[in-house]
């Protein structure tokens, strides 16, 4: 079996300083992608580990006194990462998935992006274990192998791998910047090992950058209300500080959690800021974000663009199906929707069953 090698030049193309960075992830991902598309990886049994639940006990306190923010005019690079995944077809033996990641940065009033993907994987019950383990070993640097995800979980897991790598790249390449993550700074989950998150944040601090993680959704509640639904009568921009949140091990919080309401309107987001950064610097980081990025609906444009650029459109889904069929001769199976088949217009489809 010959695996095609691709010449990859990634970080050199950034428009900012180029420290020595690990560029091997895309290379390995591409190899694995091609491998899954061209042949089936032999089945090697492995003991499954129980996944650790991400439980959030109701210990959270919300300081009703807001931290008022004043826009701080200091030119700073704002960079953001997001990834996206999609299962775009089924074959007789498995599923075809695609992942794509995007780094977006704003520098000198202009937005730039670097997109990685789409990387397509043909995941079967036979190859998923080996595929996932290979990635974990190579990139998450985990000593304990996590349990192999189900076929349905695989797209998210592979996309997470790519996202973690992209985040890592940004922290290594940006100095004195603001790095925006999509999600939280929680680790200890199957796809976010503590060591990796610690290393990522340490690298950012080493380069004098601040990591801010915006969550579009949160389940955290205070007095029975979602923390993002609490709007004290103050004029934005401001942040509300939370305290007392504890997770069961091995879940670890690497950030302090805030509720950020950066513009007028009813939008607020959970914002995790690296807890190793001292509080005045955290506030300063958000204040710099207010002037260095467009903030609309309390959400930074750079992060929004990262999301938009990596999301798959219907057109791309058709193109990827076309690619899989034409280039790799994969036969896509159109499975009938049993709900529709049995219940006609009363069947709402498999997803909402």
């Amino acid at each position, binding site marked *: 079996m010959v695996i095609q090698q691709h010449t990859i030049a990634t970080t050199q193309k950034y428009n900012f300083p180029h420290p020595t960075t690990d560029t091997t992830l*895309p290379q390995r991902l591409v190899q694995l992608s091609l491998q899954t598309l061209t042949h089936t990886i032999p089945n090697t049994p492995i003991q499954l580990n129980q996944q650790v639940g991400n439980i959030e006990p109701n210990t959270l306190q919300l300081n009703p006194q807001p931290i008022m923010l004043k826009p701080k005019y200091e030119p700073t690079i704002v960079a953001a990462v997001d990834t996206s995944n999609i299962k775009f077809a089924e074959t007789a033996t498995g599923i075809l998935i695609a992942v794509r990641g995007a780094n977006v940065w704003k520098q000198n009033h202009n*937005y730039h992006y670097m997109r990685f993907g789409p990387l397509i994987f043909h995941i079967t019950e036979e190859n998923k274990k080996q595929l996932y383990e290979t990635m974990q070993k190579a990139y998450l640097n985990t000593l304990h192998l996590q349990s192999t995800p189900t076929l349905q979980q695989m797209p998210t897991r592979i996309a997470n791998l790519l996202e973690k790598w992209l985040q890592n790249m940004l922290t290594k390449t940006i100095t004195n910047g603001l790095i925006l993550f999509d999600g939280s700074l929680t680790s200890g989950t199957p796809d976010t090992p503590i060591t990796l998150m610690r290393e990522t944040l340490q690298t950012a601090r080493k380069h004098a950058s601040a990591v801010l993680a915006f969550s579009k959704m949160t389940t955290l509640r205070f007095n029975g209300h979602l923390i993002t639904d609490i709007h004290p009568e103050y004029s934005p921009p401001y942040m509300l500080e939370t305290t007392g949140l504890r997770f069961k091990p091995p879940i670890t919080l690497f950030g302090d959690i805030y509720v950020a309401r950066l513009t007028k309107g009813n939008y607020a987001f959970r914002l995790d800021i690296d807890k190793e950064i001292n509080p005045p610097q955290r506030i300063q980081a958000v204040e710099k974000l207010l002037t260095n990025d467009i903030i609309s609906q309390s959400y930074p444009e750079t992060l929004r663009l990262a999301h938009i650029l990596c999301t798959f459109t219907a057109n791309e889904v058709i*193109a990827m199906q076309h690619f899989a069929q034409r280039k790799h001769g994969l036969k896509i199976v159109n499975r009938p929707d049993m709900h529709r088949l049995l219940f006609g217009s009363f069947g709402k489809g498999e997803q909402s069953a």
Partner: protein
Amino acid sequence: MKLYKKEGNVIQILSFPNETVEKGDYLLIEDTEAAKSLIAQVIDVQFASIPGILEELLRSLPDGGQPIQGEDFDPLEIAPHITYIQDASLLVCKIRATLENDNLNPSTSWLPSRSQSTIQKLPIPALTKLAKTDEKLPIQLGVTKDNSLLAIDASSLDGRLNIITGKKETGKSHLSKLLMLNLTSYKATVVVFDLNGEYQSLGMTQDGKRNAYHDKIHVLTPSQNFKAALKQLNLHVLLEILIHALHLPGTSAREFRRIWRSLKERDMLNLHELGEAIRNWHCNQHVRDALFSRYHALINSGFFTDNVAESTMLEESLFRAKEHGGAIIVNLRNTSSIDRQIVVEYMLAKLVELLTANRLKAIFLFAEEAHLYLRETYWDDIVTRMRHFGIFTTFVTNQPDTIRENIYRQADNIFLFNFTNEHDLEVVSRAARVDAETVKSIARDLPPHYCLTLGKVVRDFPMVVKVKALDVKTMGETRLFFKDIN
């Protein structure tokens, strides 16, 4: 290409970027199971409605309308597949015929298999071969978009009503010349009402030498080498002129008939005696005045003569053309509106007379901007009555609304050049031999000198052709003021 949808006789086909299909092209949709094929013509090319296109476009312009700068690391090279899907087009086609056992029939009642049918471009030569458009007497019109020659059969113009229309400077007169010259080479008799004097030099090449048509072109200029002898005129011809061209009232026409008969009985039918007879005729003063004014109009036209020898040119030319084929060019340039009508009335009456007496076989009449000299009632006459005498007319106009709707409905062939004006296209689309969508969609995008040919000449397979050049002195160009400066 893939069959997508069929509604009535409109079929929609999905086409991909590597398949170059344009408006006007023909497609063969072959269903091997059914052993039949559909022949469809592309009348519109649209973007295929691909889901997610709007999102694709929006995300490429998120930064205040400026495209966002960036690079894509696409190791699997999916991007070409994305653009391949994005650039897919939808071909809206009209079904023209069904092909079964090498026979064409206009039936569209069957449905080819969507999954099994194969679709390919049908080259024009293959189509013309199937449709047998150039069987006996081919006239080369020009080249089609795929650079194949398109010929029509001259006999498909025989007995037909044709219209050549299009906006200014698109090549109408050029095509008209091409058709009439080719007809003369098949020994046909052609009469042209040449409004701008642009047909007179067709017997010469562009560099002023005699060409193959030189002896077949007979230019008749009214009041110069084309005159009518009063003695040879039939009363009804003169009355037609007086009533229709010179608007003589009925009472006066009655008196004129009496004068004419009186002079004829006395064998005194000449211009001088006619004037004297009107002067001395016992009738109402108003009638006399009316007759006198018309008499002077006839005299002033210079078209009428007492010398029979001066009036033989028309018949001579017609009979020569009957023997060897030829074109009688009636040069109406520098002729006043009234004189033009007098000449045309005379000419048509004379032709009918000769055809009725079987002295001529049949003639092809080319009428440029006929609304400028043809009276209202003649339109129906030409289409219905004169057709039976053997006058087969081709109207040439850049104002399609000057031709009546019933003429379009009865037109057998339409040679349509570019029109951008909706109103003009609307008028032409009333023609019975083609659907309005085809006319509106294809004619709007025709480049100059490209003609959409409709009707019997192409066996009802509308075809776009670039009309071939002629090595003749056309004299149809616009005289420009700033010509020397450029």
